[in-house]
């Protein structure tokens, strides 16, 4: 299964690399363009010393990890992001005929190399933050950082799967899923404590966005928890993020069973 995945993705990558100029132009456009979004944060920081108690390098860490997880998830789960189109065109019936799980087929159907610009941008912001903080961490903290980014990626893949599953019921109005995906990454780019309590509660207790990077960063930067929750919270990050993906996969199965063709 894994080798088949690499065969399929390899073919996608080769096809995307056929248009080298367009790939490079796209890469640069996304790289610089996403940088402009962080420029907004920089502009705001010319008017204040810290945001909700977080200094600029600390916010850069939040922003960098959130963006990196999101971009990696977007790259791998591109097939789910564009899944509504598959349903609308009635192409899903064909997937059902093949001797592999549909989940696997959708996952292996696309790998968006063009998101690499966003990945590079996130790495740049993250590195700048780490450099400005003069982070002198032991190996275990660096591993924890990597683990955090991986957890966040799993979380966002889970959200993309959940979003795609809705297209089994409706292909219109799917933009609302952006509230959780794009809205999620935007919220995770800033300290959670600046948002209103009801929003915060939703994103800590219902959709565990706080565990994508906020709690792990509190631990790495040795900051006190503004919500006064127990000290083991940062260590729940990866399990809770994985739970989102598991819920996504379960929901997906329900969706597939519910599927009615568009009628070809």
């Amino acid at each position: 299964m894994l080798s088949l995945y690499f065969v399929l993705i390899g073919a996608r990558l080769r096809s995307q690399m056929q248009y080298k100029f367009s790939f490079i132009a796209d890469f640069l456009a996304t790289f610089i363009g996403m940088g402009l979004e962080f420029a907004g944060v920089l502009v705001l920081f010319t008017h204040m010393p810290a945001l909700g108690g977080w200094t600029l390098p600390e916010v850069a860490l939040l922003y960098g990890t959130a963006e990196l997880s999101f971009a990696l998830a977007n790259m791998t789960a591109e097939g789910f992001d564009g899944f509504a189109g598959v349903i609308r065109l009635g192409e899903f019936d064909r997937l059902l005929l093949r001797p592999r799980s549909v989940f696997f087929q959708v996952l292996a159907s696309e790998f968006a190399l063009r998101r690499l610009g966003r990945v590079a941008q996130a790495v740049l912001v993250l590195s700048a933050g780490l450099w400005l903080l003069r982070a002198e961490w032991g190996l275990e903290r660096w591993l924890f950082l990597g683990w955090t980014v991986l957890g966040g990626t799993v979380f966002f893949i889970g959200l993309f799967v959940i979003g795609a599953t809705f297209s089994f019921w409706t292909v219109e109005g799917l933009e609302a899923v952006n509230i959780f995906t794009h809205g999620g990454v935007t919220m995770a780019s800033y300290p959670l404590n600046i948002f209103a309590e009801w929003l915060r509660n939703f994103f800590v207790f219902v959709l565990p966005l706080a565990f994508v990077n906020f709690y792990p960063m509190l631990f790495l930067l040795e900051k006190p928890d503004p919500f006064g929750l127990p000290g083991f919270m940062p260590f729940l990050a990866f399990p809770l993020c994985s739970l989102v993906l598991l819920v996504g996969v379960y929901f997906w199965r329900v969706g597939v069973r519910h599927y009615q063709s568009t009628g070809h």
Partner: protein
Amino acid sequence: MIYIALFQKSFQRMMTYRAATIAGIATNFFFGLLRAYLFIAVFEASGQAQIGGYTLRDAITYTALTQAIGTPIAILSWWWEVMRAIRSGEIVSDLTKPFHYFGFWLARDVGRATFHFIFRGLPIFLFFPFFFELTLPSSVTQWGLFFLSVVLAVFISFCWRFLVNLSAFWFLDAMGIGRFAWLVMTFLSGFIVPVAFFPEWLKFAVALTPLPAMINTPIEVYLGIAQGAGLWMALGSQLAWAIGMALLCAWVYRRGVQKLIIQGG
């Protein structure tokens, strides 16, 4: 008139996407909330009552307005149809039709923008007072000038997008250019952060471009930050950009059609 018919058809076409409109309102409003809370935290941390002439209430109103007019002015969505028509060669059949190509797309875009203003912008704006207190224009004239400024902004944004689409005449794959132009527009128009918050050198640099005329000017007219001579300067420069960009579109379009080679048409 054909352009009025095109306007109507485009408006009606948007009407059919009802669920998409509701989802769009929810998403734009949610982002507006996030951005409003961000500005509340910024003002709290800055310890100042005003930043660049904006009070906190102005800044919150700014987030409401940008989210509301972002879709009509097409900051939140882009549009590639002319680019696609050039690449596929479809443009040739349009060239034989008895209308002006620029006018054809403009009429359709104005139809779309009008729909978005009424059915997307207005509801988003009206939801805000349930959460925050907003600044309101002090007179009917100010409301009127705001609407005028939005109309000019839509027109300038259209010219900008049309120009970027025309780059497909020269570059086979102009998608990267387009994406870049869009992201530049998002930041430098003052959509993410008000231009008044920018450092001086950047403020000066963007003042030389048409970008602030797409978002920043209507908002400063609404908030009354542009006043007296400054107000007329702001609207005058918007008008000048509108005329200049339209002329540029016409010129670039003519050059593009001259060099157009259709393969196997």
